[in-house]
């Protein structure tokens, strides 16, 4: 995973709450067996309507998505993260995120930032009135900076460290193989196995 330290980019104001992962990428796009190439599915139902915010020319090339509360609820599909990244987003700012989406995002290096509704509203207004305005998302300092304003945000320490270092979770865990083996040796004898039916 590519490390995430600080990112500065323009914003797309998505004034919707409860943006579930079916909206981010509909099921029909999940049939692929690759990890890339999902940008065409991003918000595809909404993008088929005229003047959807993502397609307004003034927001072309923006890299920060600013959305309403409960972004990424619903299905666990990590394709939602891949689609946002394939489109060019590096950060999503919203008052609340679905748990599974947030976890998936951080696995792949897409930063989710929780901000108060009031902050989100002010970012929406700024992005609409001045689409060229840039937001800086500083993961080292844990703050958003826009114009004269600085807004702190919180990310748990472990996630922050992994993102800053761009670490691969699986390698970290396989480093604890001895602990896993020790745990396995003490598991209850009645626990089910999928390939063997007890007699």
């Amino acid at each position, binding site marked *: 995973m590519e490390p995430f330290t600080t990112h500065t980019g323009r914003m797309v104001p998505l004034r919707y709450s409860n943006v579930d992962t079916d909206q981010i990428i509909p099921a029909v796009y999940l049939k692929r067996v690759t990890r890339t190439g999902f940008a065409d599915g991003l918000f595809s139902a909404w993008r088929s309507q005229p003047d959807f915010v993502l397609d307004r020319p003034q927001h072309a090339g923006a890299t920060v998505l600013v959305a309403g509360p409960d972004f990424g609820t619903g299905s666990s599909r990590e394709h939602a993260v891949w689609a946002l990244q394939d489109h060019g987003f590096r950060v999503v700012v919203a008052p609340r995120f679905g748990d599974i989406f947030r976890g998936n995002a951080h696995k792949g290096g897409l930063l989710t930032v929780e901000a108060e509704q009031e902050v989100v509203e002010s970012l929406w207004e700024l992005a609409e009135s001045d689409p060229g305005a840039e937001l800086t998302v500083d993961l080292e300092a844990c703050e958003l900076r826009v114009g004269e304003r600085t807004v702190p945000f919180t990310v748990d320490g472990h996630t922050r460290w992994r993102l800053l270092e761009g670490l691969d979770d699986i390698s970290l865990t396989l480093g604890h193989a001895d602990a896993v083996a020790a745990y396995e040796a003490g598991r209850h004898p009645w626990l089910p*196995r999928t390939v063997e039916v007890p007699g």
Partner: protein
Amino acid sequence: MPRTLAQKVWDEHVVRSAEGEPDLLYIDLHLVHEVTSPQAFDGLRLAGRRVRRPDLTIATEDHNVPTDLLGGPIADPVSREQVETLRKNCAEFGVPLHRMGAEQQGIVHVIGPQLGLTQPGLTIVCGDSHTSTHGAFGALAWGIGTSQVEHVLASQTLAQEPFKTMGITVDGPLPEGVTAKDVALAVIARIGTGGGRGHVLEYRGEAVRSLTMEGRMTLCNMSIEAGARAGMVAPDATTYAYLQGRPHAPAGRLWDDAVAHWESLRTDEGATFDREVRLDSASLAPFVTWGTNPAQGAPLTGSVPRPSEIEDPVDRQAAERALAYMDLAPGTALRDVAVDTVFVGSCTNGRIEDLRAAAGVLGGRRVSDRVRMLVVPGSMAVKAQAEAEGLDRVFTEAGAEWRSAGCSMCLGMNPDQLGRGERSASTSNRNFEGRQGPGGRTHLVSPAVAAATAVSGRLAAPTDLEG
């Protein structure tokens, strides 16, 4: 120190705990399907890794499979490639697979319990958000993304942030005609789609205890629609009676040992939840959604809300958008809403008791001429059982379509989809925009309400058909 059920299961699975790091948890059972696994298997191949415990892993084909024919190749080439990729991956990595049409094939959350693999006290994960279903047995079960699928395949563990707990108590007996699905929809309407965020829900109280295992599965299944990490019900005699004798359930002395352990899996007297919610069962009634998220629901006797009367500006705007999408006028009586499609099935309501409930309403009646009704069993075993009981004939004689097992119209990855502007009453779990097909509109209901709606052509409870 007194602990909650969820905490006990967590504590028993900690492989490694370190200050400032999430606990590393052991995973007892990993369920795999074709949609969220191909990139995970690719990742293993790229890194030269193997599946650590294929014997704790099981795969099935469910999301893409057509339900109207068996044995033949899947017509959609992209769906076919995904299913064939799963077959290749399972063969290469030694993971047991239930293929389309096989005796035990079905929706991943239906076959785990059916095979007796889902047991109390287990940690269970799957690249699917409705993994919460398995919490009905007192297992800690949650949905994960594809990166985590790869992590579990490689290590049989997951690093997890700590959770909070929420006790949801439904006091008193359930009124006649109120089902687990109605309880689930009422809970979600109460706490909201983000209300369970970061929490494991434990369902308690007389109404929950009175539910069958299948009812408890329906309830836990919908926990994710309240944003919860998982949902659980403590195991009891109902749980043991369901499990005993199933293919992968322990037997003989091991059964006794297991039950002795399972008896300890309950929230201790004096343990505290981070949050508690209480519902009086007498206040519950058949429930239906009117909007585009599962929290936008109301009793069937109610009406479509007036957004102008909603105080919270975010909720008001969401309701306005939902009504525009659903093409519903504020104040419309829910019983006046006409549908053209009824879907009975899914990991929420595709089990034998769900089919019995629907057939019980349809028996001797006809599906309205204006309605197309699809009945899709959750697994091939459910299908066989229903056919042995003659339920398939009840459905077909009433004018419904009787299908093979799969996820089907719950998410329309296979050909079973709503057309643009079509409106369904559906026993599935999500009424999101376009969930059942682009431009389709979904009202979530219980199997009994689905069947009554199919007969009347408008949202209806079984009691509405009498007299």
